[in-house]
């Protein structure tokens, strides 16, 4: 085939269960260019935020993304607290971090399954999703919800961790630690799988820095960029995490970095549960938030989540800007795609763990009143 071909992927495509549209220009099996179109599920959340009160917005932000709902609410709550000059009590901050790390566990396991499926390795897909149920159950145990845990309040958290829950979470993460170790072995030793990941989608450190990659995608290329370490929020100063880095920059490194991060998450979860500080769960928040501008950054499972919140002194925000990690990482996919085989594209896309609902949020298609 000497003809230049355009392979459309999405917005409806069995590979991509989420709506975005790629146009992959191929020459035979080889990719020569790729373009991206987003916005199929825009909900106008940034605009909608300007019409809601601070408290209502907390719930709106939580609904930006179903997978990493907690970090969105966390970033928003911390930003608003910073504007109001309120600090959440220590126990609340520890619980926020606990939920964030549990969420990372569930998100990375979900991603592992999706990425394995893209590689045609359905056995790994099924097993990792089966084990992911453990952490989903733990989150349900804590919050009553499998997704959208609604843990945050402005100024604190909504629920406490009981001693019984503590025991069950410790049991659950011990089981998961074993499983993650097992998956790490599979990812590092299965020859057919390595054939799909090793040396594929290599992103050098310079490229990653130039393209502004964030999160595990950046760390797999050796860029030390982790908000939890750089700007400790929640209780990350008391319960710090180690940054997991790899210098390889290929898909395998992204697998390894994400899975090894889970060991850190599990270690921190244990540490928090065993040293949960005693305090109130909430601090008093004023109804009207003083005027000002604040930047709130947290490390979502996919990378740095960036909130820019402007208050005009009323009970509603003037502007809430959300930059999700997926948007920052798209550039790396588009830049690394040319030169790869068509078969590698779903893997490359999955490699950054894209979250489409996170990307699409800013358009008002229908004004909600």
């Amino acid at each position, binding site marked *: 085939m000497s003809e230049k071909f355009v392979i459309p992927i999405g917005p409806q495509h069995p590979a991509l269960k989420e709506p975005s549209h790629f146009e992959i220009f191929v020459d035979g099996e080889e990719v020569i260019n790729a373009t991206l179109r987003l916005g199929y599920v825009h909900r106008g959340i940034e605009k909608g935020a300007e019409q809601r009160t601070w408290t209502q917005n907390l719930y709106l932000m939580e609904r930006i993304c179903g997978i990493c709902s907690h970090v969105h609410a966390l970033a928003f709550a911390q930003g608003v607290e910073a504007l109001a000059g309120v600090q959440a009590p220590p126990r609340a901050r520890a619980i926020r971090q606990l939920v964030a790390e549990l969420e990372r566990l569930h998100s990375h396991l979900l991603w592992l399954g999706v990425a394995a499926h893209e590689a*045609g390795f*359905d*056995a790994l897909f*099924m097993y990792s999703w089966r084990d992911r149920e453990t952490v989903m159950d733990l989150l349900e145990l804590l919050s009553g919800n499998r997704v959208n845990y609604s843990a945050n309040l402005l100024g604190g958290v909504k629920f406490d961790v009981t001693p019984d829950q503590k025991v069950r979470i410790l049991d659950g993460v011990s089981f998961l630690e074993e499983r993650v170790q097992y998956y790490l072995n599979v990812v590092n030793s*299965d020859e057919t799988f390595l*054939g799909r990941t090793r040396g594929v989608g290599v992103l050098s450190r310079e490229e990653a820095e130039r393209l502004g990659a964030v999160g595990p995608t950046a760390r797999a290329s050796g860029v030390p960029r982790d908000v939890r370490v750089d700007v400790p929020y929640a209780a990350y100063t008391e319960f710090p995490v180690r940054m997991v880095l790899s210098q390889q920059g290929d898909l395998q490194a992204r697998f390894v970095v994400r899975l090894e991060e889970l060991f850190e998450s599990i270690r921190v979860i244990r540490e928090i549960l065993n040293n949960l500080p005693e305090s109130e769960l909430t601090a008093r928040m004023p109804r009207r938030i003083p005027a000002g501008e604040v930047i709130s950054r947290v490390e979502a499972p996919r990378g740095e989540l960036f909130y820019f919140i402007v208050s005009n002194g009323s009970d509603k925000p003037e502007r809430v800007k959300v930059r999700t990690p997926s948007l920052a990482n798209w550039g790396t996919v588009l830049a690394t795609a040319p030169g790869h085989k068509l078969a590698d594209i779903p893997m490359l896309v999955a490699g950054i763990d894209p979250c489409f609902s996170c990307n699409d949020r800013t358009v008002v298609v229908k004004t909600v009143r």
Partner: protein
Amino acid sequence: MTLNLNPLIVLLIFPGGLFLIMAGLAYEYLDRKLVARFQNRIGPRWFQPLADLLKLLSKEEITPLGVQRGLFYLLPLFALASALTAALYVPMAGLLPAYAFQGDLIVTIYLLSVLTLSMGLAGACTVDRFALVGATRTLTQLFSYEAPFMLALLGPAIAAQTWQIRSINEYASQNLWLLIAQPIGFLVALVGLMGKLELPPFDAPEAETEIVAGALTEYSGRGLALFRLSKDIELVIGLTLVAAFYLGGIHSPLDFLVKTVGLLLVVALLQTLFARLRIDQVVGLWWRIGTILAVIQLIAIVLGRYVGNLIF
């Protein structure tokens, strides 16, 4: 070659036609169920493949724009016909093949290739991009596994000194299992069969995460049902061939059942063990490793026979 008194029965009921269709559906169910259980899923109910088939048959068949209509409708029939015909020379269900003549092994292999070829053509005669890429991959894969697969089936033929499947089957049941005598050949034949059936990890031609359903993307209703049925039948024939050649022949229905199901178990396990190979990896694997292994096995057999003749 004896003339069968009831060629209609042979063609329509056993071993062709009805029996093969039922066997194909049963083996598809077994395959799906086994893979599901290996993957910690529940898997389909026993009648699911039949239900799928009936549902597809009753659905509207859409003719996409830009296809060559004649070819589009004829190809599924070609595929099914060639699969059904291939069954005539194979010891189906442990009974004697319906027909046999010197060289029917070559014809059977050829007929099985016609199936893959018509799938490739089916993809190529549409204008759909996924189907075109799928067709290219199907044909690429055909050219890569075909040679080693044939070489692997030639091994037993050379050992038995006949090109007739029936005679090879008899030879295999009278001698040491060829699985032990020619382990490399068995391996190549089994993996070649998986390549032929486009089972994971050789499912690049229909990799749903890249090109939807590959060559068959544009097919719906009857055409799709017939193609799927042909593949099920190919599965049964392929398993029977490999079992007859390498697992000490097949000479009773029970023998047939035990050996082919045992083989299916291994095939299902292999399907769950690996990640999908890229098409360039498939070609590399077959030409760099598969063919060489098969050739080595063949040389070993020829040498073995030569040395054996010298001794005895």
